Structures are given as C-alpha cells and as structure tokens.
C-alpha cells in the first residue's frame, strides 16, 4: 500500500514540474511521423520557441474537434486538400502573411494556386501525394494496366483493394465517365454510383491504413494505392508498382494552415518558414517517403528518390489528374452513396 502511495506522489510531482519554462509556445496539431525526430527541437534551439506536437488520426476528427471547441488552443494544423477549402469557407482559418515567409519562393509553382485555395492565402503546401492503381508485377503484366476501368474486370472478383475514402472512390467512376472529380451535380453522381455498384463484387478490402501493408503481405495484387506507399512497398518487394491511369489520378496536398483562434501568430509564421527551408523540407520528404512541394529541397534529395516517376510524376501527369476541393452540400451525396456501396456485400 505504501509503495502505491509513493508511486502516486511521484506521478503528481512529475505532472507539476512538466509545465514549460519557455516564453512562447506553439501547439502543432499534425499526423504523427510527419515530422522527423529532433527537427522541432532544432527549431526551439534556434528561436527559443517551444513547439508542443500533438497528433490526430483523421482529418475528420481534427475538423470535428476544431469546429466544436473553438478556443481550441491549436496554432498550426495540417489538413488535407478539401478540408482546407471547407475550413476556409467556414471561417475556421486565418490568412497567412506571405511577406513573413522568406522561403515561400522555394515552393513548386505547379503545385500552388489550386482550386481548393486560390493564391494559397490560407494554406502552405507541406507534403503531397497521388492515388493511382497499385500493381504487383509478379503476377500481372504491367503493360495491360492503363485505366481505372481495368479494376472493373470480373476476373478480379473479391480481390481488389480500394482506399477507404468516398471522394477517392467516386473519383474513379467520375473520371471514367468524363466528369470532374469535384462535381456537385446529382445526376453525374447518381451515374457514378451505378457504375461503382458494379465494382463492389470485386472489392476485397476498403483499406484505412497505409495501403503498402496488404500489397507487401500478398493479400492483394491489384487495386488503388498511394504513391508514397508504393515507394515504401518497393523497399520490401520490388515487384510492387503504381500506374497513373490515363483518366487522371487523384492528387492530394497536406498543407500547413493556421486556425482562426491561434495565438502567437508571429511565432507560427517562423515555424512555417523553418519548415519551408530546403534542407528541412528534404528531411521531411525522406522521413515520410512522399514527394515534397519544395523545389529547392528536391535538389538535396537522393537521385533515386527524385528520379522515381511514381514519387515525382511529370507535370503532364499532374495536370491530367485532379486535386479534390470541397464540394459543399454535395459531400453528403457522396458519403450516403458510399455508405450504401460499402454495405452492399454485407
């Protein structure tokens, strides 16, 4: 019993003394593993600004939390593509002062000024990626895979991997039918739904963690995959690769954004500028295994990483694909259809 009491006392003492001695603190809300170890303490050494790093497991829960708890206390968040446009529209973000960012010029212009945030007034690209077709070339002839429609082939019955994301799955059908992946048109969505219904018998898994795992484990040989995951999977099994479908791949961008009620906005700009430094951005890209939007950083990355066409597709491929932006009220149509699709095989 005494030991127990002592333990409680120790814990209480630890809790009391863990409060910080730094003048300025930034609360950085991000995915884990999105920052290499030791990077933030370098920033603190340099500027005296302490960074508290906390993590979320999905854009959806980050959004729900920031939306409800408006004194949220978070100073910097990293929403993916269409959450930027949604949060911007709902006045949840504040403008970023580009004049305070000496390293903004390092960013690749072809990845700026996208529909989800024209002029990048609310978001600074951090890491980007693409979703295409994953292929295990040990069993599949790579040349035979060119289009999203290849997934519909009945020979894949019960074998495909799809990413667990309504927008990405509708992207395929909408693109096949020649529509924008950002459509808000009900009839276009209804048509896409009909097409996706035919795809469902082929689905083995709606994958919600990194898609590299099932490909490496040999659970799946064909389906959707992210480009960064492909690169990771190739380190384990060189047969795994990714095809950018001719109808256009899904592109997404995780961007730094400042919530409306953030404090220490100056310090946050300093952190953003730090993350835009070529050497820092290069370190981040290598850690995560996804492409960096930072052109200056690309020069510092290993050649095999830069020349990997899966990681860094050419400008034409990027132009052919589409970034997702917020579809407003239509989002519920996507999600409701998706709900039905997932329960179809039940």
């Amino acid at each position, binding site marked *: 019993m005494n030991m127990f009491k002592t333990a409680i006392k120790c814990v209480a003492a*630890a809790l009391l003394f863990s409060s910080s001695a730094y003048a300025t603190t930034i609360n950085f809300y991000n*995915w884990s593993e999105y920052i290499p170890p*030791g990077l933030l303490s370098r920033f603190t050494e340099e500027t005296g600004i302490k960074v*508290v790093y906390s993590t979320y*497991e999905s854009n959806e829960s980050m959004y729900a939390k920031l939306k*409800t708890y408006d004194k949220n206390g978070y100073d910097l968040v990293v929403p993916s593509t269409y959450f930027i446009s949604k949060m911007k529209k709902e006045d949840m973000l504040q403008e970023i002062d580009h004049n305070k960012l000496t390293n903004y010029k390092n960013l690749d212009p072809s990845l700026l000024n996208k529909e989800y945030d024209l002029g990048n007034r609310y978001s600074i690209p951090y890491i980007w990626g693409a979703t295409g077709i994953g292929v295990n070339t040990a069993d599949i002839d790579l040349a035979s895979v060119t289009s999203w429609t290849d997934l519909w082939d009945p020979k894949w019955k019960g074998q495909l991997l799809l990413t667990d994301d309504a927008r990405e799955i509708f992207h395929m059908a909408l693109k096949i039918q020649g529509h924008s992946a950002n459509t808000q048109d009900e009839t276009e969505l209804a048509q896409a739904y009909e097409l996706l219904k035919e795809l469902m018998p082929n689905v083995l898994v709606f994958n919600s*963690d990194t898609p590299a*795992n099932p490909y490496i484990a040999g659970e799946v040989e064909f389906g959707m995959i992210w480009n960064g995951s492909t690169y*990771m999977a190739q380190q384990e099994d060189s047969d795994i690769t990714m095809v950018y479908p001719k109808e256009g791949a899904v592109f997404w961008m995780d961007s730094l954004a400042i919530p409306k009620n953030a404090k220490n906005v100056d310090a946050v700009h300093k952190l953003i500028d730090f993350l835009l430094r070529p050497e820092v951005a290069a370190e981040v890209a290598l850690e*995560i295994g996804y492409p960096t939007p930072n052109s200056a950083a690309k020069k510092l990355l290993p050649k095999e990483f830069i020349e990997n066409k899966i990681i860094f597709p050419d400008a034409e491929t990027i132009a052919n694909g589409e970034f997702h932006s917020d579809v407003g009220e239509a989002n519920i149509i996507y999600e409701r259809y998706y709900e039905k699709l997932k329960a179809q095989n039940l």
Partner: protein
Amino acid sequence: MLKRHISKVLLLLVYIYLYTPIFILIGNSFNASKYGLKWNGFTTKWYELLWNNDTLLQAAFNSITIAVFASSIAVAIGTLGAVALFKHQFKGKKFISGLLFVVMMSPDIVMAISLLALFIILGLELGFVTLLISHITFCIPFVVITVYSRLSNFDNAILEAGKDLGATEATIFKRIILPIAKPAIIASWLLSFTLSLDDVIVSSFVTGPSFEVLPLKIYSMVKVGVSPEVNALATMMILISISFVIAAALINKSDKSV
C-alpha cells in the same frame, strides 16, 4: 487423470492464443523491416530510436498515469455503488442501472462528442482533468457489473448478523463486504486499466495539446505506417508488466513463509 490433462491443455492453448500476436510484435521489434511482414534481419535500431523519441515516451508515461488514476477512482466509485445497489432498495436504483447501461451502449464517438460539448459548457480546459473524468466515466459500468455479479447470490443474513452485533455500515463494508468482493475489485481494476490504456476516440476529443496519450500517437501513424518503435515500446511495457508479476509472486512466497 485424463481430465486434468485436458484442462491443462486448454489453459495452454488459450495462453498461446493470447500471446502469439504479442510474440509476433516482440519479434518485429527486432526486425529490420519497417512493415514487419517479412524478416529482414536482426536490429536494435528501433530501440535506439525509441530511446531518443521523447514525445513517444512522454505519451506512454501520460497514458499509464491516466490509466492508474482513472481505474483507481472508477473502482472506488463503482465498488461503493455496486455494494449500495446490492444492499439497499432505494428510489434511484433503476435510474442508476439505466445510466450504466447507456454508458456501455454509447458508441465511442457519441460519448466523445457529448462529453466534449459538456466540457465546453462547463468551461473546463481540455487536458489531464477532462481526460481523467472521461476515462473514469466509461470505466465505472465495468466495475459495477463485475463487483455486483460477485456479490449477488451472497447471503444477506451475514450482513444482518453484523448489523445486529452493532457494526456500522462502514465496518460492515470494510470487514465483510470488501474481503468478499476483493477478487472482483482486482478484476475490475485490471479491466478498467486496460480500457483506459487503449482508448483512442474519446481521448482524441477530450484531451488538449498539453496532454498527449499513447493510443492517439499510435493511431495517427496509420497514414504513413506505424513505426516499429511502437513495437519496441510495447515490448518494454510487456517486460515491465511481466517482471511485476514475478516480483509479486516472489513477495507472495516470502509472505507465506513468515
């Protein structure tokens, strides 16, 4: 004789079932492959990385702290409650059972959002306290149900006898009920500790930037793949737990010999 063997085989099989995934992760904590699906050679680099990963270690420490406090408080409240529910007939009895059922039944996300809304209304800052309150709340039903099931079928006459002999309620609780309920109390503490240590959804909504817990850290890694450092951390935690078991067994032995 045969029957004894059968039951021993059963014990063994269940332990194998429970520990196989654990051995896999211990193995993977030494696996050079990041994904742990193939063996790429022996390494201790994940332990080295873990050693330098202060945020992960801090989150683990925070999680254990919360779990110890939450399960202890939940066990205190829940045991008192279970005993009262068992001993007395009172007006709010059905009301309490109903609310306990609601907690058990509430999907994590509903509890998370409704508690968050409550904390906002109460003006509590998100962090240690809000997290603790939430964890205590979802642990209580597990305690009440476990302790209550142990007490039921228990002969009320003993309590009456105690009362007739002039014992106060507190004495009866301490001298009669607690010893009877002890195995259930320990069991429910262990269950609560486990629940608290593993909660993600509720925690992600009710904690603030100042207090990060381990499950949140781990679940937010899924996008780029969970780092094997986590396997290393889990291995350490299992080793520590097992050494506690051994220590407890040894203490138990020396107690008996005195």
